[in-house]
Structures are given as C-alpha cells and as structure tokens.
C-alpha cells in the first residue's frame, strides 16, 4: 500500500517517432491501466486514513 506508485508510461510510437491509431489505442489503454492502479491505491489509503482518524477522535 505504501509502495512507490507506478510510473506513468510514455506513449507508444513507430520507428519514425509518430503515433498511428494502433499506438494511440495501446498507449491510452496503458495509461488507463496505471491510472486505475493509482486510483485504487488512493481510494484504499483514504479509507484506511478515515478509519484511523475516526478511531483517534
């Protein structure tokens, strides 16, 4: 839970350094994956903090 969050990935590209539709779709999927992972961790941490704070009051 307290592990360093995953780095956001750079976008995929072809040899010319450009993105075709395939790379766009793949990149967005990867970014949503990492964002979802970070969001889930944040939600869990918030829930635990709320619980700990409620007990401390």
């Amino acid at each position, binding site marked *: *839970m307290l592990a360093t969050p995953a*780095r*956001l*990935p*750079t*976008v995929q*590209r072809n040899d*010319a*350094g*450009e*993105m*075709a*539709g*395939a*790379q*766009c*779709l*793949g*990149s967005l*999927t990867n970014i949503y*994956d990492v964002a*979802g*992972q970070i969001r*889930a*961790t944040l*939600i*869990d941490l918030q*829930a*635990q903090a709320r*619980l*700990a704070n409620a*007990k401390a009051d």
Partner: protein
Amino acid sequence: MIGKSHLAMAAALAACTAGIGGFFFGNSVGHAQEQAAQKRADDAREAERKKLQGQIDAMSEAAQTKEYARQGNVREIYNETQKVIEKPVYRNLCVDADGVSLLDRAAATANSEDLWGIAGDTRPIADSPAQ
C-alpha cells in the same frame, strides 16, 4: 516500676508504629490500584489497536481482491485491443513526432522527472543535470 509516663510513651510509640504501618500499607494498596488501572488502560489500548489493525487488514485484503479483478479486466482489454488494431483505420497517423514529444513531456511532468533531453526542453547544454 512502670509509671503512667512509661505507659503513655508506650501508647504513643504503638500509635506511631500503627500509623507508619498504616501509611505503608495504604501506600502499597494505592500503588497496586494504580498499577491495576494502568494495566487496564494498556489492555484497552492494545485491544483497540488490534481491532483497528484487523479492520485495516480486512480492507487491504478487499483492495487486493479488487486489484486482481481490475488486472483481469485490463488483460481482457489488452487482448481485444490486439484484434481491433488490425483494422486498416488504425494505420492512419494521428499524432506526429512533435505531438509525441509533447506527450513525452507530459509523462515526464506527471512522473516528476527531469525534462532534460526531451524535445521542447529549452535549457542550455551547460545546465545539463548530468554534469
């Protein structure tokens, strides 16, 4: 012979001894009560801490289960993506090299990384963090 004064002294001595004994007895009882109260408070705190830890552990376990489910969904999406991108429309260019550089800068910024070497970085060579 034993006079009244001796009796009075003996009575006073007995009273003093009883007083001192009573003081130490009371002191020891008070100390024991204080220790018992401290132990009860410690036990209550420990029980509360264990309960909280149990709740946090249960929440972590539930979060882990959700994370596995999320990863499963991501795998499914990835597999379907590989099929979808075979359609000709996905060969169309949508972002040129300049746009990709911007996205690289956006990723570096989001990751709190140094932008050195990424296109668009206007700092002079002398400012390179590698030096």
